[in-house]
């Protein structure tokens, strides 16, 4: 049952990420993955919140569904790190470096922010 819910919520997370990327490109046509960066930030905020709030063994099921499922689907390592490599290949060094440096820092900040929000 948990596995099924992880799949459903993982799919929902992917849809939210796609819609974010779609809207970013609709308003500002670009090939840069800023929507993915935003989705990764949002996903780590939610994961930080869930880790703090759902730490009891009773919440293990809900923790899996939200953290492994929804947050796992909302965030992506493949696009977040493959795109900068492809940008570097086409000599967009500044964008590539900016993505490689800012993505993990933003996500770390998001995780701390999520835990901070949960503790209040």
């Amino acid at each position, binding site marked *: 049952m948990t596995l099924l819910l992880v799949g459903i919520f993982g799919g929902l997370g992917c849809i939210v990420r796609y819609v974010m990327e*779609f809207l970013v490109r609709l308003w500002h046509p670009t090939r840069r993955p800023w929507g993915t960066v935003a989705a*990764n930030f949002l*996903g*780590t905020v939610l994961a930080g919140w869930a880790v703090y709030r759902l730490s009891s063994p009773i919440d293990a099921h809900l923790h899996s569904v939200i*953290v*492994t499922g929804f*947050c796992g689907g909302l965030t992506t390592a*493949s*696009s977040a790190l493959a795109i900068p*490599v492809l940008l570097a290949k086409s000599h967009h060094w500044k964008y590539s470096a900016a993505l490689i440096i800012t993505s993990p820092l933003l996500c770390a900040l998001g995780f701390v922010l999520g835990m901070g929000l949960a503790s209040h």
Partner: protein
Amino acid sequence: MTQLTHIGPKRFFRAVALVGVSGGVGAVVRDLLLKFQPTANAYDWTSHIPWVLTAINLSGIFLVTRILIGPLRHHTFNSESRLFWVTGFFGGYTSYSSLFVTLGAIWHLSVPASILTALVIIGASIAAGAAGVIGAKK
């Protein structure tokens, strides 16, 4: 550049369904593989190192780089093959948030170890992407 996003409502909802289904399958595959991660010891930071998640993420980065430079090279953001594999399946298969959950757990035991783990994993991820580029050239 407008061809990147301008699609009709019917195609948009088809894209959403495609991403949802393939992303859900990717998330299930990740969850099944994560069962192979050894149980962490509360006092030993090395037991928290996310070996399985790292393997999942590295393989996902390698394969996404390889297909974006190879078979999907000329596919736009909304092409169905790209939505299925890149946005959906590998988006659900790999996870950035779970990595930070693990790094947070290591941080509580050893701050330098957490920073070191993060740097090694990010370095390995860039190497996996570069390997995908080199692999596709051959």
